[in-house]
């Protein structure tokens, strides 16, 4: 009998572990834009592959965009917190507190790169008896003139791309560097998940059916390690969105408990026409 319970606990831990892969989603449908204009973004703390439990987001600490047109252009930072509005996001059989941001056309109008940065308030994870704070980046481009997509912002936890996150063909690879305060994090632990449900921007929900079925939990959350320079590379086998999370990048304290600092970057993948 003891053996049965031991096996049951081990199996629960093994099968259940992917459910712990939290991702701060920062989403807009298209990141390679011909022209700028009004934009709608959704900010949801979720599990992108299983689309299940949506965690209640704490109030946002920072939300801004850094725009740069051209390699020699001057980066311009615009605070976006005034555009945030709390919403309820519905996932598969569950709902949680999230945010949306409707940006007027003047913010994303000029050509160049737009690096969106979201620093949510720490989220308490009872299972780990600690808070999680994911420093999240989303990048988009207007008109094809590149700018600051590869520039570190010096965040406490950050994934700096070595390929443009908005220009990737299906079947390509994506590379990046895990950094803390602008310095590479050797051998950083990373998790990769596919955004398996299309976000419904009108209904504030994950739509219908999953796009893919994983043959094994290890395919739901793919774990990799960076090399000793903090660099990593992943394959991009399917069009859509891939979330990359770097875990244990640093630590701080909130409300008398530890805060695990993590970094998230979203990569959009496009099928060949």
């Amino acid at each position, binding site marked *: 009998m003891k053996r049965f319970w031991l096996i049951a606990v081990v199996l629960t831990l093994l099968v259940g572990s992917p459910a712990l892969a939290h991702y701060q989603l920062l989403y807009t449908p298209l990141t390679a834009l011909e*022209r*700028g204009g009004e934009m709608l973004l959704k900010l949801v703390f979720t599990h992108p592959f299983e689309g299940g439990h949506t965690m209640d987001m704490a109030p946002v600490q920072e939300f801004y965009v850094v725009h740069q*047109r*051209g*390699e*020699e*252009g*001057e980066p311009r930072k615009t605070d976006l917190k005034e555009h945030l509005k709390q919403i309820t996001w519905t996932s598969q059989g569950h709902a949680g507190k999230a945010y949306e941001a409707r940006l007027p*056309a003047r913010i994303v*109008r*000029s*050509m*160049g790169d737009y690096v969106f940065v979201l620093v949510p308030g720490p989220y308490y994870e009872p299972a780990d008896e600690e808070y999680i704070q994911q420093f999240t980046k989303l990048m988009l481009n*207007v*008109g*094809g*003139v*590149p*700018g600051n997509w590869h520039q570190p912002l010096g965040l406490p936890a950050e994934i700096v791309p070595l390929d443009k996150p908005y220009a990737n063909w299906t079947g390509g690879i994506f590379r990046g560097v895990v950094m803390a305060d602008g310095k590479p994090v050797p051998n950083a632990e990373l998790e990769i998940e596919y955004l398996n449900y299309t976000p419904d921007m009108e209904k504030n929900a994950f739509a219908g059916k999953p796009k893919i079925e994983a043959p094994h939990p290890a395919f739901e959350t793919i774990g990799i390690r960076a090399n000793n320079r903090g660099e990593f590379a992943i394959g991009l086998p399917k069009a859509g969105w891939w979330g990359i999370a770097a875990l244990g990048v640093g630590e701080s304290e909130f409300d008398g408990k530890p805060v695990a600092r993590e970094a998230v970057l979203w990569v959009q993948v496009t099928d060949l026409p």
Partner: protein
Amino acid sequence: MKTRGYLFVCVLLTGIAAFAAPAAAHTPLFSCFDNGDGTIFCEGGFSDGSSAAGTPILVKDGSGAVLLKTELTRNSEVELEKPAGAYTVVFDGGDGHQIEISGSQIFE
């Protein structure tokens, strides 16, 4: 002499290739929008992120006559008076690097 001649041609071709490569590797990009106050804002650049500062910009009327000739600033942008009637804005980056935007395609 024959060997030296080949060497000269090779060096020349390598030099041409080296200098020609950047020009072939990037694409000019140009965009304008209407500020809604009687002016239009235009900006240029290249697909490799290099600057378009100093690129000549022409504003033509409906018949193709040049109304204004100016150039992109240090920040690769320029603000122009919006002409009355039909007009076109031309980014004149030289051979193969010209882009024309019709006024009807310039929105707020």
